[in-house]
């Protein structure tokens, strides 16, 4: 027998089994309605759960994006300082972050998809349950218990299929959400412990530490260089330059006005 046929028979068998348990056919209607209302609550909660998961992934993506930007900046700074080794390390770290980001992106899309599907399923079941309630009252008012049996069976089996369908959709969404939460938890931990940053080097963000050190050194080196230049420029015109100590200013001074006071040039 074909797959599609077998699935339909499985659904029907479940409905039949439940029907058999009912003694008073009218009781079936109320019992079923109660279950439908419960199922509606479940599916709505399911939608909310998926939305929460999606938002969590969204936040993580923002965090990762920040880290990626930071690594990019580090790589550029390192290159500017001639530290290709650090730039390479920063780019390697960025690569790992990007991989995580892509992974999350995929999960995000899946969650969005689940949320959308579950929302639609919830709306469909809602409409069906409203229609069932009307039908239930009509059957109860119009028919005797014996007459009502066929109509009850129809309505019950019909809506049972819908409930089975929605139940599966919820299950699917729950499975998906559970998977995502496990992963999201792991990424949260990684982000919190700085382990994502530590994949490449030792210590917590050693690249930044090196760059900071480098930054401080470069600052001093620059100042030393500037001073050396200044001294070299000023050497012949020390006296004039003396006033403000700025090489630029001393350069502006017309040559004609320069040294009268034999400075040994």
């Amino acid at each position, binding site marked *: 027998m074909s797959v*599609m046929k077998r699935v339909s028979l499985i659904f029907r068998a479940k409905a039949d*089994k439940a029907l058999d348990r009912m003694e008073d056919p009218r009781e079936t209607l109320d019992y079923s309605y109660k279950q439908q209302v419960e*199922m509606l609550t479940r599916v709505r909660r399911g939608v909310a759960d998926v939305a929460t998961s999606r938002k969590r992934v969204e936040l993580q993506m923002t965090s990762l994006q920040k880290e990626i930007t930071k690594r990019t900046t580090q790589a550029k700074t390192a290159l500017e300082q001639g530290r290709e080794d650090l730039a390479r390390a920063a780019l390697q770290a960025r690569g790992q972050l990007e991989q995580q980001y892509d992974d999350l992106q995929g999960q995000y899309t899946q969650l969005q998809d689940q949320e959308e599907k579950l929302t639609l399923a919830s709306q*469909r079941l809602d409409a*069906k349950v409203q*229609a069932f309630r009307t039908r239930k009252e009509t059957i109860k008012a119009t028919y005797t218990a014996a007459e009502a049996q066929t109509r009850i069976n129809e*309505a019950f*089996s019909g809506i049972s*299929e819908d409930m089975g369908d929605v139940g*599966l959709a919820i299950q699917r969404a729950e499975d998906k959400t559970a998977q995502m939460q496990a992963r999201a938890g792991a990424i949260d931990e990684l982000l919190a412990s700085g382990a994502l940053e530590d994949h490449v080097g030792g210590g917590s963000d050693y690249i930044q530490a090196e760059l900071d050190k480098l930054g401080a050194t470069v600052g001093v080196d620059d100042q030393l260089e500037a001073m050396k230049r200044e001294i070299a420029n000023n050497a012949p015109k020390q006296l004039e330059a003396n006033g403000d100590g700025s090489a630029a200013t001393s350069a502006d001074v017309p040559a004609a006005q320069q040294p009268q006071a034999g400075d040994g040039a």
Partner: protein
Amino acid sequence: MIVRILGEGQFRLDDDSSAKLTVLDKDVDAAVHAGDEAVFKMALGAAVKLVRETGAPVPDDEFVTADYILPFSDATIDEVRKLLTDGTIHSDPTAP
């Protein structure tokens, strides 16, 4: 014929579409048996497309059971197998 696509509700198909679906059903079946995910995806995709495009949605106030139930449009063979063994219909709405 009434066909349900899991997650999408029921549709009423005319004879022509029903005949076409029966053919596709065989493909889906063969793919599940062979465990060929690619063929399965293609066959299921074609079946779902046919039902969506040619079927008329069954109104909310009509209570009928489906002759055929198609898996979720993005189902995998594993999911279908689970569904078929006990209907891993985890959430059995008719259970007490």
